[in-house]
C-alpha cells in the first residue's frame, strides 16, 4: 500500500519493467464491477500481492446525511447498493423507527419483506449474470437480465421507479400494493423456480464451470469470521449466520425459510448458496403474498410517522410582472426526534448491512454510520487472491459480489 505510487512512478519514468511484473487493474476495467482498482504484483500470471484501492465513487453519504432530515436520508440510502435499494431503505428505516419509537403496522411489514426479497432476487440474478460473464459464459448473462427485467417492471408498478425506489419510508411504506401487482407477483413466483433450474442446467454441471469454481478462493469458517465476511460468502463457508433468523425484523419472524450453507467455502459453494437463496426468497414472497390477504385494508403507515416534505402544486404564473418570493416547499414540521442512539442491522443480499444513528434532538441525524458488506468484502480480496491466477481474481471479485457504491459510500 505504501509503495504502489512510488513503484508506478519509477516504472513510468524510467521506462523500466523490473521483476516482478506490476499490473494496475482498474478503475476502468470491464470486470472489477465498477471502479475498484487493484494493484497487482505478479509472477508470471500468479498473484503474489494484491492491493485494493477504493474511493473512486465516494460521495460522502454519511456526512451528507447530517444536513438532511430523516426522511430525506432514506433517499441517500438508495444510492449505496443500487442493485438492491429496497434492502438499504429498510435498514435505514428500521434504525430511525427505533430512534423515534414507532411501531410499524403488520401489513407494512409484509410489504417491506416482499420488496426486500424481490431486491434479493434482483441482486442475485445480477450477481449470477456478471459472475458467469466474468468466467466467460455469455448466455447466462442475458437469461438473468430477462428475469430481472420482469422484477424491475413490477417495481415500476409498485412505486414508479426501477432502480432507486424509495418505497420504504419511516413508519411503513409509501403506498399499498394494488391487486394487479399482487397478481403479477403470484405469476412471477409460479414461473421463477423452473427458470432457476434452467440456469443450473446451463452451468451447474458444465465441466469448465466446475474447473473454474471448485477449489478456488477457499475460505475456512474461521477465516471467514476473522475477515468479517457476512452474507452468502460466510454461509458458503458453513456458518449458518443470517440476520433474518437471528434477529428477525419486519415479517421474517412469521415466514418459514431455510438458511442454506456450503461445506468447503470455495467459489462453487458460494454459488450454490446463492442459487438456493433464490429459491428461498421466492418461497418467502409467496408466503407473504398469502398473508397479505389477511390484512386487507389495514393501514401501511404508522400513525405518528414523520411527514414527508411534499412540493406544493406549481401555481399558474400571475399576470402581474411582480417577482415572487415563492416558497416551493411546504409541509408540516418534522417532529423533533428525541436525543439518543439506535442501531439496526439487516440481511442485505450482499451481507449484513448495519446502520448506527445518533440524534441530538434536532430534526437531523447528528451522526450516521453505515456498515456496508462490500467494504468489508473488498478487504478480503488480498487474502483470497494470494497465489491464484489473474483469471481467478476475476472469479473472486465476482463471488464476493461487491458493488462499489456500497463500498465507497
Amino acid at each position, binding site marked *: 500500500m505504501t509503495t504502489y505510487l512510488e513503484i508506478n512512478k519509477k516504472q513510468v519514468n524510467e*521506462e523500466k519493467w523490473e521483476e516482478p*511484473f*506490476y*499490473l*494496475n487493474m482498474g478503475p476502468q*476495467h*470491464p*470486470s472489477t464491477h465498477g471502479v475498484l482498482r487493484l494493484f497487482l504484483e505478479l509472477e508470471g*500470471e500468479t498473484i503474489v500481492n494484491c492491493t485494493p484501492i477504493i474511493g473512486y465513487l465516494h460521495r460522502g453519504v454519511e456526512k451528507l446525511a447530517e444536513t438532511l432530515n430523516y426522511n430525506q436520508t432514506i433517499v441517500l440510502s438508495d444510492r449505496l447498493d443500487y442493485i438492491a435499494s429496497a434492502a438499504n431503505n429498510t435498514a435505514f428505516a428500521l434504525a430511525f423507527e427505533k430512534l423515534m419509537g414507532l411501531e410499524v403496522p403488520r401489513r407494512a411489514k409484509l410489504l417491506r419483506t416482499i420488496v426486500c426479497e424481490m431486491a434479493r432476487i434482483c441482486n442475485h440474478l445480477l450477481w449470477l449474470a456478471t459472475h*458467469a*460473464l*466474468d*468466467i*466467460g*459464459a*455469455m*448466455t447466462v*448473462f*442475458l*437469461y438473468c437480465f*430477462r428475469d430481472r427485467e420482469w422484477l424491475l417492471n413490477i417495481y415500476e408498478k409498485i412505486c414508479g421507479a426501477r432502480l432507486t425506489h424509495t418505497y420504504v419510508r419511516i413508519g411503513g411504506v409509501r403506498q399499498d400494493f394494488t391487486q394487479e401487482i399482487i397478481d403479477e407477483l403470484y405469476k412471477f413466483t409460479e414461473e421463477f423456480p423452473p427458470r432457476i433450474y434452467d440456469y443450473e442446467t*446451463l*452451468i451447474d454441471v*458444465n465441466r*469448465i*464451470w466446475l*474447473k*473454474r469454481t471448485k477449489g478456488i478462493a477457499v475460505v475456512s469458517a474461521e477465516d471467514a469470521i476473522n475477515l468479517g465476511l457476512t452474507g452468502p460468502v460466510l454461509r458458503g463457508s458453513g456458518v449458518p449466520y443470517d440476520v433474518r433468523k437471528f434477529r428477525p425484523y419486519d415479517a421474517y419472524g412469521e415466514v418459514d425459510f431455510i438458511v442454506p450453507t456450503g461445506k468447503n467455502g470455495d467459489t462453487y459453494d458460494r454459488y450454490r448458496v446463492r442459487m438456493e437463496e433464490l429459491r428461498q426468497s421466492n418461497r418467502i414472497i409467496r408466503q407473504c403474498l398469502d398473508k397479505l390477504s389477511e390484512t386487507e385494508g389495514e393501514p401501511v403507515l404508522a400513525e405518528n410517522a414523520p411527514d414527508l416534505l411534499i412540493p406544493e402544486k406549481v401555481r399558474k404564473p400571475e399576470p402581474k410582472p411582480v417577482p415572487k418570493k415563492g416558497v416551493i416547499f411546504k409541509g408540516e414540521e418534522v417532529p423533533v426526534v428525541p436525543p439518543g442512539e439506535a442501531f439496526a442491522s439487516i440481511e442485505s443480499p450482499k451481507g449484513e448491512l448495519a446502520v448506527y444513528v445518533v440524534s441530538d434532538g434536532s430534526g437531523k441525524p447528528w451522526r450516521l454510520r453505515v456498515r456496508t458488506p462490500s467494504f468489508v468484502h473488498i478487504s478480503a480480496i488480498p487474502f483470497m487472491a494470494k497465489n491464484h*491466477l*489473474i*483469471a*481467478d481474481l*476475476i472469479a473472486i471479485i465476482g463471488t464476493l459480489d461487491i458493488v462499489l457504491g456500497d463500498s465507497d459510500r
Partner: protein
Amino acid sequence: MGEVIDRLISIIIAAVILLVIALLHVAYLTYAERKIIARMQQRLGPNRVGPRGLLQPIADMLKLLTKEDLIPYGVDKPIFYIAPFISLVCAGTGVALIPLWEKFVLSNINVGILFILALSSLSAYGVILSGWASNSRYAFLGGLRASAQVISYEIAMSLALLSVVLMAGSLNLVDIVNAQINSPYKIYLIPQIIAFYVFIISAIAECNRVPFDLPEAETELVAGYFVEYSAMRFAIFYLAEYFGMVVMSALAVTCFLGGWVGPFKVPYVPFFWFLIKLYFLLFVYIWVRATLPRYRYDQLMGLGWKVLIPVGIINLFLTAFLKLIF
C-alpha cells in the same frame, strides 16, 4: 509467351473471385454470428441497418474505416503497424489452397497441408508482435498467452492431420479428397473420429475462440493483445480471426468430411456440398461460443499437453499400425 499470359490472367481472375467470395463470407460470418447468438440468448441482434440488419457488416466496415487510427505513445511503431497485416495475410492465404471443387483449386501444390500448418503457425507472430509492440501490460500478457497457446495446440493439430495424411498417403489436399471418396467409408470422419475431435478442439484454440479465447479474454485482459489498436487495424485482427475460422473449417471439411462430394450431385452448383459442410462447422464454432465459459490459462495448457497430444499420438500410432496390417 501468350500461353503464359493467358494462364496468368486466368489465375488472377480466379484469385479475385476467390478473394471476393472469401471476404463476403467473412463479413457475413460476423453478421451470422451476431444473429445466431442473439437468437440463442433471446434477443434480436442487429436489425436496424438494411432489411433485417443485412447491411450491418458493411456499416461496421465503413465506420471502422472512417475512425481515427490512434497510435499510443511509446509503441514500437513499425512493428505496431505491420502486426495486424501479418495476422491477416497468414490467416487468409490458406483459402488459396482449399479445393472448393475438383476443378477449382487456386494453387494445387503437393504439400498443401504442410503449407496451411506453416501459415497458421506464422499467424501467431502477428499476435505476439502486436502484444509486444503495444507497450501495454494487458497486451503483453495477451501476447504471451497467445504464443504459448498457439504453439501447444499446433502440435495436437498436426498430429491429427498426420493420421489423415497417413491414410491418404499424400499431402496434397485434392489427393486427400480423392482418397476419401475411394475409401470404403467415403469420408475419413468415421475411421478417424478421434483425430477429428482433436482437430476441431485444436482449431478452436488456434483461432482464439471461446472457450479458448484467453489471449483476448475480455473480462481479464480487457481485450488482450489488441487492446491498444483502433480503427481499421483493430478490424483487421477481427478479419484475421474470422478468416482463420473459415480456413480451419474448410480444412476440416477437406480432410475429414469429404470435401466437395455429397450424397448426390446438385446440378449447376458445384460448391454446394462443400459450402453446406463449411457452414455447419462454422455454426458449431458459434454454438460453442454461446454455450461455454472460458478455460483458465493453466487448465488450457493441461488440456493441450495432457489430453489432446497423447490422444493424437496414440491415434497416429494406431492408424500407422492398421495401415501396416491391411
